[in-house]
């Protein structure tokens, strides 16, 4: 045990010497500071709901593959807003209000257009507008709320008041921050502030995906691959390895410890960056998204996959440059396979892809590291943590859920298998070689 601890410590000395860890930690600290500089202030319920309904007059229509937003000249407003705070131990909030749409004629055009788009018929033209039934009106309003990720709404039509239609609306949400426009955002420690056009939850999904998927998931991983790719080749240098192999240590143990050393190297900055951002964002927004925190695991899993391949390349080629290029190459290819496979499966509906192509993609997807799936899984975790399962599914569908669902079980199992195969091969080659 002492021997392997010494190898780990040696890896640590190596990273500290290269200043690369310091660099990663500094970048992480800067990003955490940026997150800390954003503050949120809750606005009044009436203003929030008014903001929320203001774009109900836009309907998405489809022409073939292209979506187009059509705006109708109808004005939505709320009045008589009452807040019903949730029952025992429930953090959810409930609002009751009256929703009005005016003028009625334009409102009807709007509802009809929405119905037509839903049933993919051509748009209603002309002046003679048929009257949609009260049920259609109610489901239109309900759908508009659902578009804004508010699944639990009841809408009941009231008698017309003048040239306006009125509805009794009862909204129930998990918390205020999932409502569009409920908060004011201030950036750079209050230097500038404005009403957030989306909900805090959706905004945080954006920020968290940026941090976990782009900053850590692309930039951070790339740096980690570059810096850790040199570990094994440096150890294998002629004259360096002799000093170690002459000691009473087994080669597979030595190599696996080097692998773990490289892995721990990324654990520190990943935990600092995502953990730090999580803590700060949770504190500022007063909501703990454990999905974001859990995405550390997926980031580390992605690195574990790529690093195992990097170690194998290091043993085979004894060159960090070769290792970096092969590993980044594998990353790119595996990601591309994921994207193309999702695309092909999505278009299967109206374009029958050749069976051989689908099979080949599935096979490649099975053996290659599932970098894209892990990335999508992280996004899913983040969205679900912020919006809840129901609303995040709605969000995914809206974003074009043509992608195949992430299969967590097979994804984790095949990733573990990939790591095992890579490391076994690396240990086998390392044990048999003469140095």
């Amino acid at each position: 045990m002492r021997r392997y601890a010494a190898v780990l410590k040696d890896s640590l000395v190596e990273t500290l010497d290269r200043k690369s860890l310091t660099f990663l930690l500094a970048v992480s600290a800067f990003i955490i500071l940026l997150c800390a500089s954003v503050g949120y202030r809750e606005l009044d319920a009436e203003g929030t709901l008014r903001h929320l309904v203001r774009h109900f007059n836009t309907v998405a229509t489809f022409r073939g593959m292209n979506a187009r937003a059509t705006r109708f000249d109808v004005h939505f407003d709320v009045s008589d807003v009452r807040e019903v705070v949730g029952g025992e131990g429930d953090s959810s909030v409930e609002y009751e209000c009256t929703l009005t749409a005016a003028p009625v004629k334009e409102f009807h055009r709007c509802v009809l257009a929405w119905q037509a788009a839903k049933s993919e018929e051509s748009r209603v033209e002309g002046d003679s507008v048929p009257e949609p039934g009260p049920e259609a009106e109610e489901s239109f309003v309900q759908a508009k709320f659902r578009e804004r990720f508010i699944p639990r709404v009841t809408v009941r039509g009231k008698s017309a008041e003048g040239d306006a239609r009125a509805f009794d609306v009862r909204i129930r949400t998990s918390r205020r921050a999932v409502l569009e426009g409920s908060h004011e955002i201030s950036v750079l420690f209050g230097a500038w502030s404005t009403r957030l056009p989306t909900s805090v939850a959706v905004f945080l999904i954006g920020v968290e995906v940026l941090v976990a998927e782009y900053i850590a998931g692309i930039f951070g991983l790339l740096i980690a691959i570059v810096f850790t790719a040199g570990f094994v080749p440096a150890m294998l240098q002629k004259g360096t390895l002799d000093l170690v192999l002459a000691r009473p240590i087994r080669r597979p143990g030595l190599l696996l410890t080097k692998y773990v050393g490289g892995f721990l190297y990324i654990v520190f900055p990943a935990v600092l960056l995502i953990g730090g951002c999580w803590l700060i964002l949770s504190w500022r927004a007063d909501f703990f998204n454990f999905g974001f925190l859990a995405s550390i695991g997926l980031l580390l899993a992605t690195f574990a996959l790529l690093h195992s391949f990097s170690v194998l390349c290091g043993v085979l080629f004894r060159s960090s440059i070769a290792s970096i290029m092969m590993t980044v190459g594998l990353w790119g290819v595996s990601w591309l396979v994921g994207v193309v496979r999702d695309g092909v499966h999505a278009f299967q509906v109206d374009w029958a892809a050749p069976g051989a192509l689908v099979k080949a993609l599935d096979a490649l997807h099975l053996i290659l590291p599932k970098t894209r799936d892990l990335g999508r899984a992280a996004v899913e975790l983040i969205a679900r943590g912020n919006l809840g399962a129901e609303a995040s599914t709605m969000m995914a569908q809206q974003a074009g859920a043509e992608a195949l669902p992430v299969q967590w079980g097979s994804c984790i199992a095949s990733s573990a298998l990939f790591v095992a195969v890579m490391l076994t091969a690396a240990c086998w080659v390392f044990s048999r070689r003469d140095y």
Partner: protein
Amino acid sequence: MPVIETRGLVKHYRNVQALKGVSVAVEAGEIYGLLGRNGAGKTTMVKILLGIAHRTAGEAFLLGRPVGDPAARARVGFLPEDHRFPDYHTAESALDFYASLSGMSRRDRRARIPEMIERVGLKEAARRKIRTYSKGMKQRLGLGQAMIHDPDVLFLDEPTDGVDPVGRKQIRDVLVDLKSRGKTIFLNSHLLSEVELVSDRVAILELGLLRREGDVPSMTTAKDVYELRFDGRIDPLLPEIQKRVRGLRRIDQGIEVDVDGRDALNGVIDFVRDRGIGLVGLTPKKQTLEDVFLQTIDSPPGAPTS
């Protein structure tokens, strides 16, 4: 039981036969010198014994265990040729690393490391990064890491490489000291004069074959060559002496003869004494190890070696 033993050790690299069946046995407490030209297979031999390279055929044992068993290396130290320390270490942290790899406890390391740094003369540089060291300093550190865990067996591949004469003398003293404490030392070198100074036994390896092996005194004593000194004028007798010996050479105050056995030697002495000239000195002729080495590698592989 020998501490180091090989039987018919064979090693083939892809297209080189580095060892072609080498059998050696080194007893505990010996300093064993392995000599040979560049590429003779000396390093290969050591690497196989330490499990750094794998043998193609034959057997090899270290401290009674088959090579390749990590436990066999627990009590073994190694100074590789052309070693390269990871340059992010200091002498101190490097020794700590290698000592831990050998399984030394933290307490033992704390006590042992400063002592070792002192011993190899790196006290001033102990906390400097190795990348700032000179070649000789690195070599001293190499010796330090080989001895850090007080091993019973030491493999030293060109230990004096790049070390100045003072340092060489220090290293020789260290080796003698280790021997006096019962350690076994396996020394690879082509600095013959040094090997001669410290080794108990030497072997000459040439093109992967063991060409000669023996203890230093018997190897450097040339067989049947003697130096004779007399108290009278010997010159007039030379033609007669010539007839009784294989080789004859005039040296200061006497002659050097190469004779065919003891009787022939006594015949020469009797002949001279009968002429009224007394024998004042008789010494068996000494050769340097270099002479032996050059003779050995010049003779064809099949030729008899003593």
